[in-house]
């Protein structure tokens, strides 16, 4: 098994991504190290094999976007849309993440050690997200499925128009969005939080978390429809 180094100060991004899409799939590459990312956008997008990508520095937009089975670790912060539409695998941001982290992710695990910006987990479709710090406003907007564990606080309108995704928050929630409510933590919830925290390598007591889920009152268009007054 080989280890490859791509220095983005010398090699174009396109070469890195093409390598990851083709050569890495042969199975002989264990790890790809990316040096001098310098905030470049679209690092390691569209991974389609269990390769490990280590980014030594800050990444721009969409790092690890659409990941399937790959593993990306960013030793720095990530820009907008990190791990957007991930299907499986793992993306780990050691620093902070900007807006729309994990947007529309269908699967896999996104771990953000620091804080995440606005709309973290927006349109989530089955992925899991663990945020060590706090998340900005409108997080989990219209989230359809999957789980979010927020170890810090949440901003305004958390979980607005939530579908079946479940959110766990340890800190303060500035405000809940439409059609969302706080529910009691069941044994299954405690176990889920414990498991996700363990996967993320973050230590907290699961019973410190609150569960937020949909009221399911917006599932049908105006309940009064078709009623004559």
């Amino acid at each position: 098994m080989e280890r490859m180094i791509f220095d983005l100060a010398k090699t174009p991004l396109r070469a890195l991504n093409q390598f990851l899409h083709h050569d890495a799939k042969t199975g002989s590459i264990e790890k790809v190290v990316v040096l001098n990312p310098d905030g470049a956008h679209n690092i390691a997008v569209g991974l389609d094999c269990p390769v490990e990508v280590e980014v030594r520095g800050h990444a721009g937009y969409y790092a690890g976007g659409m990941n399937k089975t790959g593993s990306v670790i960013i030793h720095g912060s990530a820009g907008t849309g990190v791990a957007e539409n991930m299907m499986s695998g793992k993306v780990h941001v050691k620093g902070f993440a900007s807006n729309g982290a994990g947007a529309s992710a269908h699967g896999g695990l996104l771990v953000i050690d620091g804080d995440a910006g606005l709309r973290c987990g927006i349109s989530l479709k089955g992925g899991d997200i663990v945020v060590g710090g706090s998340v900005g406003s409108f997080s989990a907007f219209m989230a359809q499925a999957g789980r979010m564990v927020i170890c810090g606080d949440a901003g305004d309108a958390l979980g607005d128009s939530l579908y079946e995704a479940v959110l766990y928050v340890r800190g303060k929630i500035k405000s809940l969005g439409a059609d969302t409510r706080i529910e009691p933590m069941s044994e299954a919830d405690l176990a889920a939080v414990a498991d996700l925290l363990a996967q993320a390598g973050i230590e907290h007591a699961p019973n410190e978390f609150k569960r937020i889920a949909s009221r399911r009152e917006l599932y049908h268009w105006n309940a009064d429809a078709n009623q004559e007054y």
Partner: protein
Amino acid sequence: METKSEQFKHISREESAGYDRKTLDYIRNAAAHGLYEIRGLGAKRKLPNFDDLVFLGASLSRYPLEGYREKCVTKTLLGTRFAKKPIELEIPITIAGMSFGSLSAHVKESLGRAASELGTSTTTGDGGMTQEERRSSKTLVYQCLPSRYGFNPDDVRRADAIEVVIGQGAKPGGGGMLLGQKVSPRVAKMRTLPEGIDQRSACRHPDWTGPDDLAIKIQELREMTDWEKPIYVKVGATRTFHDVKLAVHSGADVIVVDGMQGGTAATQTCFIEHIGIPTLAAVRQAVDALEDLNMKGTVQLIVSGGIRTGADVAKALAMGADAVAIGQGMLVALGCNSESYIQNGQHLSAEADYAALGTAPGFCHHCHTGKCPVGITTQDAILEQRLQPEIGAKRLRNYLKTLNMELTTIARACGKQNVHHLEREDLVALTIEAAAMARLPLAGTDWVPGMAGY
């Protein structure tokens, strides 16, 4: 003796223009239900459109081509700007994005088969790619919509081009909707939604806002596909001149402009009729924008919204489009609004089913209900049997062929060996409105409203 009955009785029948029957009906309906009307298809009001233009044809000053002997090329290339593998089509008439969910799987398959036979492309829609359409379509454009329902990188890799949808002509600024009756187990699973809910989709993309972000999003899709596949950007027609410029700056290979007549499967009527500009006005603005940036021929333009006939196609091309996309016309070819459907080789009446929806053949716009009387816009296991893929594909093929024959007929009459050589100089307008919107002279004059100071 005079009786009361013999007295002259005056019954006033003066209809109000402001409160006509349609408006009275609208207000009563609103008062009864407390909910706006949601419906399918496109704007029903009269709008300046391609019918308001005519071709000048050849005569002494230009000579025509012989109808049957002289070749008239229809080949169309899309995505030549950045993509390593541009889309090559036999005809400039494509099938617009219509979701599985709004349409049955049979319809998706019919569209794919017909498009493949004629050498053109078909497009997925809100809700992801089905096996049926991928299997049956030689060239398939994969939409990336705000909702991202069913968006899957494997499908990105399987697609021939990617279309980032910013908006639709029927509802610029609005997200999709699919009412509960159509959220069947399969649709629900594809979209990761609970079965039977009234689905409302986002109107903004979850991971980008504004043209600077869009540029990075497009780059992501390019990196993801190793710069092979063309990236289209679809906008509903509103501030088309600016939107097209921004889309070009964002790095689009192809821009799809959808005018306000464009169809939909379910949208609020107030959206359909009152937001957006007519296709005719939008094409001109889009072409102006491309010319302004010196991008005509580099970035291709697809126009949609109310394209019905070969003449419409020819006029759109002459105005500067590279291709057109059709939605509603395809549905009509499949039997939308027809009195009957075909099952086991027999024509069976669908009138009772239209009546049950409170409508009649010719007036139906009830796609949102999922109870399409002819089995097109439905997820119902029984209704969808009313449209079989073989019959559907045949009708669509005939329709596409007819459009293409009309297109080449017109092009030859204008003396063109290639339909893409049709030009604005071949057109004049029949109404002042159309002349102003299309910036063409009124027929028989050299007056272009708004030009030369008056």
